[in-house]
């Protein structure tokens, strides 16, 4: 019986006969597709990666001064690519900043454990745990500011399509400063994830925010870890 199905296709695909019409719009559709693709093709170099509204302020912190020299180089140079074998990014310690922040109040791995299970697909969220901060400006002021930044950020970060396709995950540390008028400036990568796609996405997302609706008594320098994490599948 099986062989009859194989050798006599009329049994395999026997269906009542009928008339048919050819698909006219196929070629038109393909032409439209080609046209739209060409016209929509974006120029990757057309958008500036870093938008610093306020390039230099009076109140540069010492650490900023230290990394300023490496900023341009870091933003442009490709971080080392990950080892393919284990599919994990190499950890990169470019600057003293990253060393310093690793001792900071929020241990990223801990945060991942706390939060990953709650998120829906494609949702972006920021944790809102209060931290004791030592700095100019009142604690109150900083806490308000940080929650504002977090809200802004939640709307700006995205998971790059290519990183989702290739299964790339990682953590990017962004360093930036906020001026007394709420302007973000000096945005740069403090520590790369090992995937330039993730680094550029993080940098671009933050640079989309030019200003926070807030006034400060003093310029602040902040470092923001951005964790890219895939689930499911």
């Amino acid at each position, binding site marked *: 019986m099986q062989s009859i199905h194989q050798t006599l*296709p009329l049994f395999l*695909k026997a269906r009542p006969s009928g008339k048919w019409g050819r698909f006219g719009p196929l070629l038109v*559709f393909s032409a439209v597709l080609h046209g739209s693709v060409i016209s929509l093709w974006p*120029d990757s170099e057309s958008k500036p990666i870093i938008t610093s509204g306020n390039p230099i302020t009076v109140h*540069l912190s010492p650490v900023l001064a230290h990394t300023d020299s490496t900023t341009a180089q870091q933003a442009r140079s490709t971080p080392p690519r990950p080892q393919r074998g284990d599919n994990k990014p190499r950890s990169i310690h470019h600057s003293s900043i990253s060393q310093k922040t690793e001792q*900071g109040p929020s241990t990223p791995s801990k945060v991942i454990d706390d939060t990953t299970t709650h*998120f829906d697909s494609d949702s972006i969220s920021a944790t809102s745990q209060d*931290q004791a901060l030592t700095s100019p400006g009142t604690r109150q002021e900083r806490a308000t500011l940080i929650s504002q930044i977090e809200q802004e950020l939640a709307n700006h970060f995205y998971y790059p399509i290519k990183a989702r396709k290739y299964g790339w995950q990682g*953590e990017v540390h962004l360093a930036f400063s906020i001026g007394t008028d709420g302007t973000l400036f000096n945005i740069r990568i403090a520590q790369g994830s090992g995937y330039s796609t993730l680094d550029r996405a993080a940098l671009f997302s933050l640079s989309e925010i030019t200003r926070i609706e807030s006034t400060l008594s003093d310029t602040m320098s*902040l470092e923001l870890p951005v964790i890219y994490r895939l689930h499911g599948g």
Partner: protein
Amino acid sequence: MNKLQLTFSLLLIGTSTSLQAIDTIDPVIVTATRTAQSADETLASVTVITREEIEQSQAGSLMELLHGRAASLDFSRNGGPGSNTSLFLRGSESDHVLVLIDGVRAASVTNGAYNWASLNPAQIERIEIVRGPHSTLYGSEAIGGVIQIFTRRGKGLHASLSGGSYGTAGATFGTGGELGEGRYHLNLSHKQSEGFSTTNASSTNYESDDDGYKNSSVGIGYSTPIGNDLEFGINLSHTKGRNDYDDGGYANAYAETQNNTAEMHIDWQTSENWNQRLSVNSSEDLNESHDSWPATITTRRKGINWQHDLETGHNSLLTLGLDAQQDHGKIADSYDEKTTTQAGYLQYQWSGKQLDLLLGARSDQHSEYDQHTTGRLVVGSRLGEGRLYASYATAFKAPTFNELYYPFYGDPTLLPEESVSVEVGYRRGQLRASLFKTEIDNLIQYNTLTWLADNIGQARITGAELEYGLQVSSWRVDSSVTLQKAEDVESGENLLRRAEKKIALTASGPVTAATDMGIEISYTGRREDSFGFPSQRVFLPSFTLLNLTGEYRISPNWRLKGRVENLLNDEYQLAYGYNTPGASAYISLHYTQ
């Protein structure tokens, strides 16, 4: 060293400016669903079945595994496991689903369909079921969708022994791990069953003897990085099977099958926004039937694919590819022919804050039917916590070798079968819902006026599918509902063996510290079938299957598992005149390192 430098610079500059510390804000966590390799779930209806689920279900065949585990699947089978098995995805024809095994096209070129009985679930790591047309990436066959099967990987040693009803016995062995810079895997499996009679008294081929089957497979693979930017991989597989069936007057009819595949690829990260993959593959499928119409059928396929992924801006991806395929089909004493296909395709995907866009187009150049172009457009939008998408796509199926070349039936001037589909879908976490409509034109059917195959059919399929998964404490619950109407446009009759209603529920989780349980319930509505010549229509009644699974962990390395199938002993039919398993039980012992 760095610390010293930092301290030093702090001291130096600290004297001239007010000292300011850098605060680390709480991390922003950006999460997303890992994209299936076959398609992006945010813009298409995709179900993924992982190794974990395969282990949990303990299903003895691909059909048993997939039935009730994803929406919009209809199966037909000419007897028990091991018998010829067909799948209808979203109501389309059995050769309208593209089956890729480690990226290699798996269907026979002679009758166009993949035999779902040939692969043992023990050899599988992951299955991606992509519903809806995807010819713009994959070319011919992807009208109802794409089912991509990745063979088993894994680390360490594993082995199992199994046995159960109908004289069924099996064994598996596998190992995997690091070798040099790279990774290897090796998997062996064997399964055999004395079975039961494939036919019942309503079949003209009826014979009462048991019809058993045997299936042995080996899969082996290695992948390794070469320097920083290259990765090389190779996968080889071999499957050998034999199954008995009934052929009326011809006693003890059986078929022997053999399948070999080889696949090699190189991934190259050319620059920070350009990745490319070059892959070559070759497959061979032999089928020798010993019955009243003996035949030796050979399929040989060779393919090469070169694909590029280019990041073209902020959150956009351009995929470009070239495909070439040579197919060779041979039925001893009937035909021995080759066809070639060359294709170029591109896909552009852009994702904004609110909107997503996907555009795809592909052109295939075929040695018989010349040129065929397909396109796909998907627009997506955030809606609440989820995403809504709408898509329009064309797809096609090249004529099979039987349709082109079989003496006194085939016609080399046949055109491809072609389809237009529209779909609206929504996805929010583990909730997936779609409404779809597909119209297939130029369907190849037997023309009683010319006595040849002809592009004379037309089909229309409309449907709605819903999949919902949730976690209830430590239990995993998945459900699906499919409502569909698949009909011949000219006659208004239903397409055969496709149910209008399907409902399924699976649940699994721990019962005690060492015991897991699982339950699978599925309802399949009534379907139409035909029999005899000239054919008569008949209804296959609806049926409900209830399966139970259990697992007991004897020690960290040893597990005892059991599966009870068709506990309600429903005497269901997947094809008129053919039998299906009654209540049956299987048990297995597993070792994992």
